[in-house]
């Protein structure tokens, strides 16, 4: 019996593919030295983390329509801590933890709610966060003042990615450092999501998603696992936000916008909801498309196009790009598809 047969064809092809991607990711800064592309790649990594976080919650049957809330809470909490002298590592993890605690609180409210109700509450929560934070704009200006002072190391270039994102670039020297920071954070998030989905917890999530009543009868503690899903997912979202705000030296209430709640959804659906690879592919494709449309000078149009893409996907491609990619990789690797999340 060969090793290949022992581990299983599926595992070999899938893991070697991921290993290859990691190698490419590690080598990328050697090839791409342009600040603009570096920034777009970091942005893609950020969206992969954020979409993976959303996907994990959706995997347990709970689709959040306001995931930007946790992104923003993570961002604001870490920013406030870091500008008050907390070490960045501690600040980032505390920010993520803050998002996770709010996630737990919202999860407790939502635990008895399904689909529509859950959507309504999470959607409203993000918008109300934005409205409340908007009223506290004096406070935000103060944060940005300190944040840009803290981040200023002499050569800040505010024009790098254009005004469309409204964000400032970090100093040029740390370009590769930031790249690897986001790269490892993303790999960590994906790995964590993979481990959760493959564990007993992941099976419980899937059982709850498919049939809550039956899962309950089989002895799955529904409340407990739903809250676990909320806590892990919001921790990941908060983590992404906590890294992103200090990276930009800038944060504003826009982080709570519908757009930010909407991006992980369209990305995950484009890739394939409920799979590990889905958010990765989706974030890659949608973010590159988004940035390219920005380069073409679109602002309102690209949002309109995104909406049209989402509606068309729901109507004609509800499983996303993942089944298509799986077919291709199966053909290349000579394996057969197994009904498991890639």
């Amino acid at each position: 019996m060969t090793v290949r047969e022992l581990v299983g064809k599926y595992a070999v092809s899938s893991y070697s593919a991921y290993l290859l991607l990691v190698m490419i990711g590690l080598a990328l800064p050697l090839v791409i030295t342009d600040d603009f592309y570096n920034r777009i790649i970091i942005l893609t990594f950020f969206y992969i983390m954020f979409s993976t976080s959303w996907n994990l919650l959706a995997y347990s049957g709970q689709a959040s329509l306001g995931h930007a809330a946790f992104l923003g809470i993570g961002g604001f909490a870490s920013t406030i801590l870091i500008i008050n002298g907390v070490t960045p590592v501690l600040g980032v993890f505390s920010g993520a933890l803050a998002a996770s605690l709010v996630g737990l609180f919202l999860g407790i409210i939502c635990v008895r709610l399904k689909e529509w109700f859950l959507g309504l509450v999470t959607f409203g929560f993000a918008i109300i966060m934005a409205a409340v934070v908007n009223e506290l704009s004096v406070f935000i200006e103060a944060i940005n003042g300190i944040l840009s002072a803290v981040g200023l190391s002499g050569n800040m270039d505010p024009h790098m990615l254009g005004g469309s994102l409204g964000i400032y670039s970090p100093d040029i020297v740390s370009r590769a450092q930031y790249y690897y920071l986001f790269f490892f954070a993303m790999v960590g998030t994906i790995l964590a999501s993979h481990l959760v989905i493959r564990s007993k917890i992941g099976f419980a999530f899937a059982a709850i998603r498919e049939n809550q009543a039956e899962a309950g009868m089989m002895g799955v503690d529904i409340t407990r696992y739903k809250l676990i899903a909320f806590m892990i997912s919001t921790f990941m979202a908060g983590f992404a936000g906590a890294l992103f705000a200090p990276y930009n030296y800038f944060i504003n209430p826009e982080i709570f916008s519908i757009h930010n709640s909407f991006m992980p959804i369209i990305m995950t659906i484009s890739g394939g909801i409920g799979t590990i690879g889905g958010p990765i592919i989706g974030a890659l494709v949608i973010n590159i498309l988004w940035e390219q449309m920005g380069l073409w000078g679109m602002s309102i149009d690209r949002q309109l196009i995104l909406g049209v893409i989402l509606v068309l996907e729901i109507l004609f491609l509800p499983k996303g790009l993942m089944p298509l990619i799986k077919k291709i990789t199966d053909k290349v690797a000579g394996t057969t598809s197994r009904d498991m999340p890639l």
Partner: protein
Amino acid sequence: MTEITTLLQIFIWGLTAGCIYVLMAVGLNMIFGVMKVVNFAHGEIMMLGAFASFGLYYYTGLNPYFLMLFSMVIIGVFGVMIERFGFRKVLGTGKLNEIFLSLGLIYILQNAAVKLWTDDIKKINSPYSSMTLDLGVLNITYDRIIAIAFTALILICLYLFLIRTDVGRALRATSQNHEAAMLMGVNVNHMYMLSFGIGAALAASAGTVHAILSPFNPYMGTIPGIMAFTVIIIGGLGSIPGAIIAGLMLGLVQNFTIFYFGGAWKEAVAFVLLIIVLVIRPTGIFGEEH
């Protein structure tokens, strides 16, 4: 004396704000009752209603309250189209698809509106904007009186339609039991389109009232949309009396909150109210177990 006058003034403001929520929430509830779909893009349909009235007003210069009826018809037809070519396609393929579809609609409608009419702030000038009813202790603008009276009128018409007519009876039957209604010869698909049309028309009237009372732009619908969702959860999903009571209550609570604590907490108080209701009574005040 001034104390009471101020409080009465706030009461009137709260009542008119509540009327907008009621018009939105009753429409949402009709759609949910019949189709079991919550249209997240309801706030955007309301915004389109405001723009339809604005456009008619801009080109004809007639009384906006009269033009509102045309705007309701236009947006009602638009709502029917959304049901027919959007929601109908994904009905029964899973609740998540319906949710994501309405999210896509938010993006499309909002950005199409910005594209067509820019995001400049606009206002519909009512011919009664300078007239007030002097009650001695307080002055109420005619526009607010009309808004309240109009909402009451619409609700009475809707009630009579649902109770007295055959179509209304068919709508209620579909809302209670799809299969049984189908067996009794009700064309359920027509009822879906009708409920969506009525919901959209009510949203259009809410949008027009909002546009007459305060300036607006294509992003105007988001917050009232969220508030309408809050109202239907507080009142009980699918319950029209619940939507009316919860809508008026939310309008009043919000306006008193602005007075006592400041504008920052206007939205937050709605959420606090929502959480309290969900914890104490998850089905809402008038809701039934699903």
